[in-house]
């Protein structure tokens, strides 16, 4: 199987977007983005606050429409997808999600099956298999009978991953999934995502903050700066002290670990 000839699962072509403001010019966030995401890729999206990372995800999930240019999923503009069909292609793990109280975790994860619903009131055996597999893959099977208020931060994040997996998407979008997790849970979550990527042939696009974590996690990183793609490629090429200085305005120096891996360390005076 050759990855090179596979059609992109998602593509941004000259995309511009601004948030409307009352009585003023729209707040320009994306100023011409060209980006292709091939099926089965694992991509980390990096950039300073306000560089347009979340906006990019929201355009891809259909929550926003581009001002100019085209956003495509499986070669079809996002706006032309029927909502349910798009929801079977793209799943989102948002930055904040208030889990409604009173539902068990298994029921919440089953909500991820909504785009696949066949029956008016019941669920199919296929739904049940998908939910169980999602709970298993997200390492959340033991949480199935818990209620949201009985979950720790790490457990909550596993439940959200399970909800997204139950959706059985081809493309999984994650918006800072490690935000409220301690280091151990951050690493565990990203390892799990890599496993899923491998097992399920899932395309993963994750907005991340930690550059080193991103470098360890993703074979390809995209660096956004002021609504444009500043750099795109393997972490070793993108995450250079020069680029970091240019985009983040922060001085770093490369550190090589004993096993030969490169890291960036903050150069604090």
């Amino acid at each position, binding site marked *: 199987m050759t990855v090179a000839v596979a059609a992109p699962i998602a593509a941004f072509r000259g995309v511009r977007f601004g948030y409307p403001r009352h009585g003023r010019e729209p707040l320009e966030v994306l100023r011409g983005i060209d980006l292709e995401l091939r099926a089965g890729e694992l991509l980390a999206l990096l950039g300073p606050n306000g560089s347009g990372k979340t906006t990019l995800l929201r355009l891809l999930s259909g929550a926003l429409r581009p001002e100019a240019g085209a956003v495509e999923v499986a070669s079809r503009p996002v706006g032309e997808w029927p909502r349910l069909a798009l929801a079977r292609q793209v799943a*989102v793990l948002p930055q904040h999600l208030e889990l409604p109280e009173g*539902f068990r975790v298994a029921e919440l994860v089953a*909500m991820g099956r909504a*785009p696949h619903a066949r029956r008016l009131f019941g669920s199919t055996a296929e739904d049940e298999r998908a939910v169980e597999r999602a709970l298993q893959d997200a390492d959340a099977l033991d949480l199935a009978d818990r209620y949201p*208020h009985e979950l720790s931060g790490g457990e909550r994040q596993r439940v959200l991953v399970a909800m997204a997996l139950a959706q059985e998407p081809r493309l999984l979008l994650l918006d800072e999934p490690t935000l409220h997790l301690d280091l151990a849970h951050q690493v565990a979550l990203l390892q799990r995502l890599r496993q899923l990527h491998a097992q399920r042939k899932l395309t993963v696009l994750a907005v991340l903050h930690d550059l080193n974590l991103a470098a360890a996690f993703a074979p390809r990183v995209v660096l956004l700066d002021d609504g444009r793609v500043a750099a795109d490629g393997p972490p070793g090429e993108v995450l250079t002290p020069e680029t970091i200085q240019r985009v983040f305005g922060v001085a770093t120096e490369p550190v090589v670990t004993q096993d030969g891996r490169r890291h960036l360390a903050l150069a604090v005076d």
Partner: protein
Amino acid sequence: MRTAVAAGEARPLRIGLSITRSVAVLGGTALMLAVILVLGVGLGSTQVSVGDTAAILAHRLLALPTPQTWPATAETIIFDIRLPRVLTAMLVGGGLAMAGTVFQALLRNPLADPYVIGTAAGASLGAALGIVAPLLVPALAIGAGSELLGLGVVQLLAFAGGLGTVLLVYAVARSAGRVQVITLLLTGYAVSSVLAAMVALLMFMSGRALGAIFGWLMGSLANASWSALGFATPLLLVSFVLLLARWRRINLLLLGDAQAASLGVDVEREKLVLTMLATLATSAAVAVSGTIGFVGLVVPHLLRLLIGPDHRLLLPASLLTGAGLLVLADLGARLVPGGGIPVGVVTALVGAPFFLWLLRRSRLTRVDLGA
């Protein structure tokens, strides 16, 4: 500590409602409603024997050729006065509870009731206009007794006022094709305030009709009739069926607009459809009964605590429970000597302390109220 799922040790994974539980909940509430209906038809300010009551119902409802052994007055009391009143209470209670359930989920606000975005204020203004206009402009009195679709002018104006006000509130709250929940609530509050002031003005000017407007605002089932039932029943049934069919989307909206959208829900369209269906049920109920409070607020909370937040079960259960509770409250209202008291007084008088008890209990069990 994690439980390893050993091969062969099949642990049943419950992803939704169990059939047994659904049957138990719906069967239980339906049974409760049936018992209350029997009480409601069997009891009243005037005593009619059980045998006569059963025979009259068999004769009139089932067209059984039972020999007519009962007094004619008993038949009038049971069939023309009590039965339509009990059925109206059932319909109105069920409709309000169901609409309250939908609004609490839609607005993600535990204080939401069926009236919160303007239905009550609009319907009240419509009714007050219908009551006062013939007194202020005698020429209008000629049309006052006429009926349309089985409804009098007051009822029709109440229905139109409720529906129209929510449409207005929705249109005002809409901005750039989107309606935000908080804007909708605040707009509803503001518009309601204006309309309530207009009702107060009409009451001030109403003179002799003051009592009629008060009675309407308190809510009463004293004017129940077969023709009004004929108007409200299809509207309530249609909105119930369409709302129940949307249970999955209502559940998804509890995850928030963004997540519901990424799960394939057309959020803006869904909000509009749900608002209008719930408002249709509310307006139909209010048109035949006035603004009866508390049923639409308390019943959804009660059931969410008892059976959980899944709307697949919550919607039918709230319909049945609201129906039963209002028939019961109206029975209490009817049995007060001297023509009874407005049922709204009973629902508030009994409902409020019950609600407080519920609140205290829920804090202990840590199950959050609201959606």
